[in-house]
């Protein structure tokens, strides 16, 4: 069972939740930028584990299915269509063999995640299927999709949406979907400026009040030279009292570091494992998926929360994902 790539899109890569356990070797975690959408897409198609999904950036691919396939698209709204008909996001969709899935204008966010029932059959490298292009690791031969690639879909047991199967059989359309959808925060993607909560970082105190206020009270824009490694922020300069001498140490997803010059960088999925710039703040994990959906030129502002608040919010998010999983399992067993 295959998906044929008729057109690759600007940057379409396979990503899972990332390559954990190898950072001490300098191997970046990589993985989906918007892990929330990635996980919900997997849950929607009934994949039990952390299968890779396609991370589709800004301008999506054109994909042909050679067999009936259950997919789900979550995250940014990149106008997915089949035969000109809009394919809904946040739902399981059964696609008929021979259909061609297309993407169009970017209407909200900038990254969509496409999960397929059974996952994508590419080898695990260091325990993960995530693509890390710099070292040509994981995913589809360590690179983004190219024209004429064939994505093999993995084995899955049982038909989890038999009613969709019947619905598609009765219909003349190319795809079928249920009435229900999951809440995947699509309404939050449109906020301008986007609000991203942060926790004081390791070197917060080393920055003068003026710099800290500039971070929390002024707006920033995602700079054009932003990518999966990091987002550079245009806005007020964030400068320390005096240059800080810092020995390199670990960084993480959402670390806001400030290089000389005062233009902050938020470290994202393909970040290096260590860094030597002062860390003024860390993005609260609960908001990383909203940050990941911003594109160059988008506006954002930061809001300070405590570590305890951030962890409580994160545990609530984990609970929300658990609830989505349970609701779908319950629905399927009925």
């Amino acid at each position: 069972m295959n998906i044929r790539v008729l057109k690759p899109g600007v940057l379409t890569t396979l990503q899972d939740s990332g390559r954990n356990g190898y950072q001490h070797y300098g191997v970046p975690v990589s993985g989906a930028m918007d892990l929330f959408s990635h996980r919900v897409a997997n849950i929607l198609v009934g994949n039990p584990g952390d299968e890779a999904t396609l991370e589709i950036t800004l301008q999506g691919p054109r994909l042909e299915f050679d067999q009936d396939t259950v997919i789900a698209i979550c995250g940014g709204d990149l106008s997915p269509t089949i035969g000109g008909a809009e394919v809904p996001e946040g739902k399981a969709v059964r696609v008929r063999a021979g259909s061609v899935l297309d993407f169009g204008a970017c209407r909200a966010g900038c990254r969509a995640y496409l999960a397929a029932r059974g996952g994508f059959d590419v080898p695990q490298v260091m325990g993960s299927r995530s693509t890390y292009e710099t070292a040509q690791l994981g995913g589809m031969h360590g690179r983004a999709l190219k024209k004429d690639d064939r994505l093999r879909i993995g084995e899955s047991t049982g038909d989890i949406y038999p009613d969709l199967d019947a619905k598609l059989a009765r219909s003349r359309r190319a795809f079928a979907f249920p009435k229900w959808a999951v809440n995947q925060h699509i309404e939050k993607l449109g906020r301008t400026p986007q609000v991203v909560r942060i926790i004081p970082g390791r070197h917060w105190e080393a920055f003068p009040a003026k710099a800290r206020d500039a971070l929390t009270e002024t707006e920033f824009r995602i700079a054009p030279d932003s990518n999966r490694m990091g987002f550079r922020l245009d806005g007020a300069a964030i400068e320390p009292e005096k240059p800080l001498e810092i020995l390199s140490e670990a960084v993480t997803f959402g670390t806001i570091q400030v290089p000389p010059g005062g233009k902050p960088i938020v470290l994202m999925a393909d970040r290096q494992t260590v860094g030597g710039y002062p860390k003024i703040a860390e993005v609260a994990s609960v908001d990383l998926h909203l940050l990941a959906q911003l594109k160059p030129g988008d506006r954002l502002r930061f809001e300070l929360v405590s570590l305890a608040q951030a962890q409580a919010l994160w545990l609530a998010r984990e609970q929300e994902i658990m609830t989505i999983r349970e609701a779908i399992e319950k629905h399927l067993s009925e």
Partner: protein
Amino acid sequence: MLPNPRLIPMGDRALVIEFGDRLDPELSARIAAAAQHLRASPPPGVLDIVPAYTTLALHYDPAIIGAGDTPYEALIEQIEAWLHAQADVQLPPGRLVEIPVCYGGGLGEDLEEVARQHGLTPEEVATIHASTDYRVYMLGFVPGFAYLGNLDSRIATPRRDTPRPHVPVGSVAIGGDQTGVYPLETPGGWHLVGRTPVRMFTPEAEPPCLLGAGDTVRFVPISRAEFDALSGSRA
């Protein structure tokens, strides 16, 4: 006697254990040992254990740690107890890893330039470079790139004004008072003094990297013929 380590949050899913604030081989040995011990039986929910010059970072999943006032509080309680028990543990000697290097010529394009800057001959630079044992403080930048300390000050050389867009795999280089081996073809601003035929990073191997924090590296000069033979046998 080293001061007690300090625990500091790094966001809501990681923390940093700060063992000191200065580059120091003894400190580094203690961090490497702590990393090894912790990796042998990591607390549930700890995903990554990342040593650096003066710190050890733990990346964790708060949902697995759960319990306690906050996941952070629950984890630091465990880590503090563990650090306390660690205080008297004997430091294991690190591994010694020999890395063959063919110095100069087409494989070390900048060797002559480095020699010229220091008023040395290329052979002298190579001899000095190969006669020091280097400590691996940490890995980073790209997979398998080891930050090596204690470069001889006689051959310390400021980085090139213009970085090369493509540094060949296996290049042995000097940047400021550091030296290292490029495990992948990447851009780089260090001076290339030689090349090793040994692979620093093999993604499909376990472990995937030749070096780990706490190891000691010794460069062993080889001839061009030996380099070619070793490169050939690797393929």
